[in-house]
């Protein structure tokens, strides 16, 4: 099917890649403005406290120091939200003030003289320590925070010591929780089960640690704030940024041509992106704030940690009858996350239990703020579930791939608490394709032990919803015959801004060489686009570009009919021409059509536009109106049901029983994301996701000293980001490549499941190597393996988190 396309499903050279290999690509910190000064932040040394005095006298007197910005200069926010600067820090690294100076060194010299007195308040780094009766609360207002449509607010929830001890011992939690959803008849379904497995689990959160320490540079001109920022999204970043700056969206220009990684940490505006705007306003000069690596750790966001309990019921045939899951989620100091419910949703999607209950308890800690991180919730639970599925397979005597196929998501699967359909799903096919490519059956029969090393085979499944709707598309045909595709999608490095733009070129049958993408700067007249996150871009923006291109196509045919006679339906396009179907020799070039559109005005030239498009798109259209033929539309295409992005992974490891280390000998990842739009880009996502999964499975975690709230891994070295030598030299990937009916090109997203399947496969392989042992914990580090193999106790308490 994809063979019909000229561009879709083909590799191409994305326009931004050359800049990346030549060093010409500009990231926020590569920009300078006349008179620009540098800023640095002073952050909280205390996990929780109240600033009682700030002495900046000496700093202000220093030559080269231009100004100081404190919490008094920025809007106050209500707890638990994050402020730009605060006097009530709730984690080590919470920004308190900023200094601007002529050079970064002067900033730091001045910083060294700052005296801040802080009155300490109780703090906590492990949710269970806060939950236990008499335990400290991370916020004075309470220790839990629920965000829901019905209302958000603080709560103080305590469990008795006995309840906490029982939970640690692996028993079903009996303490209070704040959210719950369920479907089906849970009790009956468990009663019908042949096998019931109960497991406690903990997944430790960890920092995003994008390569680029986030930077923002801002200045004001004629009431407009220009921000050179580091953002995953482009247009989607704007309303939040404007709100933080206290201005209207129209008064902000965001320049974000390239972003040095985000992984969920830069989806929407974050407070310090607005800091230079306030600072620049105060001192009247452009201000650039580049955070240090340490500060990127503090405020660059982190994955939500889980401490939970799960009970799964299986029929004799391997079919999952019921699932009951309870998750305490570590939502940091700012009550950000919401991963737990997503994890519950993922269970419903990937394992399709006939009855299910989810209970969640979001607990605040004084650790770094949490946020979405690649598959937030889905990937934690993928890691938890893999060895449990393996255990069930073993007990029931079913092949481990087979038991996953028995429960696999397909077009008829109904998911989530509200029992929604899926647009399409082919988990079964993905598993089969992966098993074939990996040669699962054959490998299964290979001998397991080789000296002190054991082989482990793993299979894992990943899921994330992979599409959103209602965003706008905007294309423009100019008299020079070029197709301009305006994209408000960010540049996270997935090249999806480009691959989705090709959808418009595909519709208009335009040579790619004659297309130009406009992006990366509000002044490039960009439409309202989705966040570049949640694996949504491919689905959402093939649609927006499709509707915009269809709008353009309709106008082109109308212009042709108007100019050359007949009805629009008499015309077709090809070779950058609109021509009469009956007599292809008669036609107009795209350039001529564009020139005619300018003459005709009205909706042809953008002087008139649909009223359902977003105000950001409206402004973009206003600015380009009259420069060509404008195709603009909101994505109102039919959409119902959940849009799944699915992936499976197979891996083989060789685990050294004496050192606890393992080598990943082979890795196969299969994407099930509808039609493949950009093969190399998809491979990149699958392989990058695999590396992320490997980091989560064995290396990355937050470590806090609970006695004083200090974080141990503030740098790259301590964070344990996987290197070249910690991942296989070759990772193999492929895709199922079956079109989804609800996307004009059949495509869905994949970025997040690409990681979930990897962490799951690794957990499954480690468990397999250790004869089915379930650690119930990520990451699994060499010390844990050594302790297990040697029959020693682990160093940590059961379910302890944010620790080694």
């Amino acid at each position, binding site marked *: 099917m994809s063979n019909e396309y000229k561009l879709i499903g083909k590799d191409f050279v994305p326009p931004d890649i050359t800049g990346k290999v030549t060093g010409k690509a500009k990231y926020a910190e590569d920009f300078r403005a006349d008179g620009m000064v540098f800023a640095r932040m002073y952050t909280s040394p205390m996990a929780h406290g109240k600033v009682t005095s700030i002495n900046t006298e000496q700093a202000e007197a220093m030559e080269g120091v231009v100004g100081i910005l404190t919490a008094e200069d920025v809007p106050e926010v209500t707890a638990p939200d994050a402020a730009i600067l605060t006097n009530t820090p709730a984690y080590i690294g919470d920004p308190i003030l900023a200094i601007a100076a002529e050079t970064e060194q002067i900033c730091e010299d001045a910083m060294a003289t700052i005296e801040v007195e802080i009155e300490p308040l109780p703090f906590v780094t492990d949710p269970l320590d806060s939950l236990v009766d008499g335990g400290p609360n991370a916020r004075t207002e309470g220790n839990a925070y629920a965000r829901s449509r019905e209302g958000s607010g603080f709560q103080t929830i305590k469990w008795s010591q006995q309840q906490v001890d029982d939970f640690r011992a692996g028993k079903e939690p009996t303490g209070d929780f704040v959210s719950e959803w369920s479907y089906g008849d849970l009790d009956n379904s468990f009663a019908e089960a042949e096998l019931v497995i109960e497991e406690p689990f903990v997944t430790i959160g960890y920092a995003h640690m994008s390569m680029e320490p986030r930077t923002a540079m801002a200045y004001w001109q004629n009431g407009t704030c220009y921000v050179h920022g580091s953002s995953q999204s482009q247009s989607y970043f704007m309303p939040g940024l404007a709100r933080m700056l206290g201005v209207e969206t129209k008064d902000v220009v965001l320049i974000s041509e390239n972003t040095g*990684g985000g992984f969920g940490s830069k989806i929407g505006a974050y407070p310090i992106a607005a800091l230079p705007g306030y600072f620049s306003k105060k001192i009247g000069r452009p201000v650039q704030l580049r955070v240090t690596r340490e500060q990127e750790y503090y405020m660059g966001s982190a994955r939500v940690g889980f401490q939970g309990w799960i009970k799964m019921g299986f029929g004799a045939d391997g079919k999952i009858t019921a699932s009951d899951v309870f998750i305490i989620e570590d939502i940091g100091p700012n009550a950000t996350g919401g991963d737990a419910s997503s994890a519950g949703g993922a269970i419903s999607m990937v394992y399709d239990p006939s009855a299910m209950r989810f209970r969640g308890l979001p607990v605040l800690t004084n650790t770094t703020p949490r946020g979405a991180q690649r598959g937030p919730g889905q990937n934690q639970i993928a890691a938890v579930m893999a060895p449990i599925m393996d255990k069930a397979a073993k007990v029931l005597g079913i092949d481990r791939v087979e038991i996953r196929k028995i429960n696999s998501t397909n077009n008829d699967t109904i998911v989530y608490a509200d029992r929604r359909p899926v647009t399409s799903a082919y988990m079964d096919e993905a598993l089969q394709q992966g098993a074939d490519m990996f040669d699962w059956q054959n490998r299964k029969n290979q001998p397991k032990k080789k000296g002190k090393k054991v082989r482990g085979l793993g299979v894992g499944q990943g899921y994330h919803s992979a599409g959103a709707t209602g965003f706008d598309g905007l294309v423009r045909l100019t008299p020079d015959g070029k197709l301009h595709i305006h994209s408000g999608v960010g540049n996270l*490095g997935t090249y999806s801004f480009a691959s989705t733009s090709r959808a418009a070129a595909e519709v208009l049958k335009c040579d790619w060489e004659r297309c130009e993408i406009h992006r990366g700067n509000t002044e490039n007249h960009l439409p309202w686009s989705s966040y570049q996150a949640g694996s949504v871009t491919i689905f959402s923006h093939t649609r927006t570009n499709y509707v915009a291109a269809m709008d353009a196509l309709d106008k082109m045919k109308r212009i042709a009919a108007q100019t050359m006679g007949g009805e629009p339906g008499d015309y077709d396009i090809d070779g950058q021409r609109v021509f009469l179907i009956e007599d292809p020799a008669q036609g107009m070039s795209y350039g001529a059509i564009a020139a005619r559109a300018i003459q005709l005005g009205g909706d042809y030239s953008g002087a008139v536009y649909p009223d359902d498009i977003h105000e950001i798109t409206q402004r973009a259209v206003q600015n380009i109106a009259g420069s060509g033929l404008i195709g603009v539309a909101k994505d109102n295409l039919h959409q119902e049901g959940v849009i799944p992005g699915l992936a499976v992974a197979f891996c083989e490891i060789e685990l050294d029983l004496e050192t606890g280390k393992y080598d990943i000998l082979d890795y196969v990842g299969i994407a099930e994301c509808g039609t493949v739009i950009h093969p190399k880009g998809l491979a990149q996502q699958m392989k990058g996701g695999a590396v992320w999964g490997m980091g989560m499975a064995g290396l990355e975690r937050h470590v806090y000293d609970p006695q004083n709230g200090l974080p141990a891994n503030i740098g790259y070295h301590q964070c344990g980001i996987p290197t070249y030598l910690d991942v296989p030299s070759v990772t193999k990937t492929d895709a199922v490549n079956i079109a989804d009916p609800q996307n004009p090109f059949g495509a869905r997203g994949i970025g997040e499941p690409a990681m979930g399947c990897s962490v799951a496969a690794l957990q499954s392989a480690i468990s397999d190597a250790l004869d089915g042992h379930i650690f119930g914990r990520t990451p699994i580090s060499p010390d844990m393996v050594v302790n297990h193999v040697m029959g020693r106790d682990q160093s940590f308490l059961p379910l302890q988190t944010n620790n080694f």
Partner: protein
Amino acid sequence: MNPQLSRRRFIKAVIASSVAAASTSGINQAAAQGNRPRGSVERLISININGQTRRVDVAPQETLAYTLRYKLGLTGTKIGCNRGECGACTVLINGVTNYSCSTLTHSVRTRTVRTVEGLQAPDGTLHPVQQAFIDELSPQCGFCTPGQVMSAVALLEETPQPTREEARQALSGNLCRCGAYDHYLNGVMRASGQNS
């Protein structure tokens, strides 16, 4: 209404043109120059970068990454951690990979420095490594890419036909948070004329 041209750009240039404006560092310069102990280094030095001799005022403690980015406008060299823990700032000094964030500019006075900006031929032709990285879609976010490119260039100059494992070892001091390792290795193999 002409959309493009009506709005004047406030930003005149990126750093490249701000070389002359590096005078902001004059403040500590004066102080440091005043009580310079006997035998300590001179500040105004010449360094050979990408085949050109550049005259630049360098503080004694200044790192090469700082000089490149803040004084010479060579912003292709990225600072990811400034602690020698990521490799984004990798440059070649006498043909060998170094973390420029952890190299004193004064230590390269008698040596040659190559950065990602110095790889293209005068006619703009990309270096084979750069071209191969494009062909293999090696970069993702691109922030670590200049460093990866430099490590690959150093490898291929010494070992024109490396094995994939040799490439993996040679590039292992360059972190990629996007996890694009596989594609970078494909790029190295392609650049060496071997099929990945």
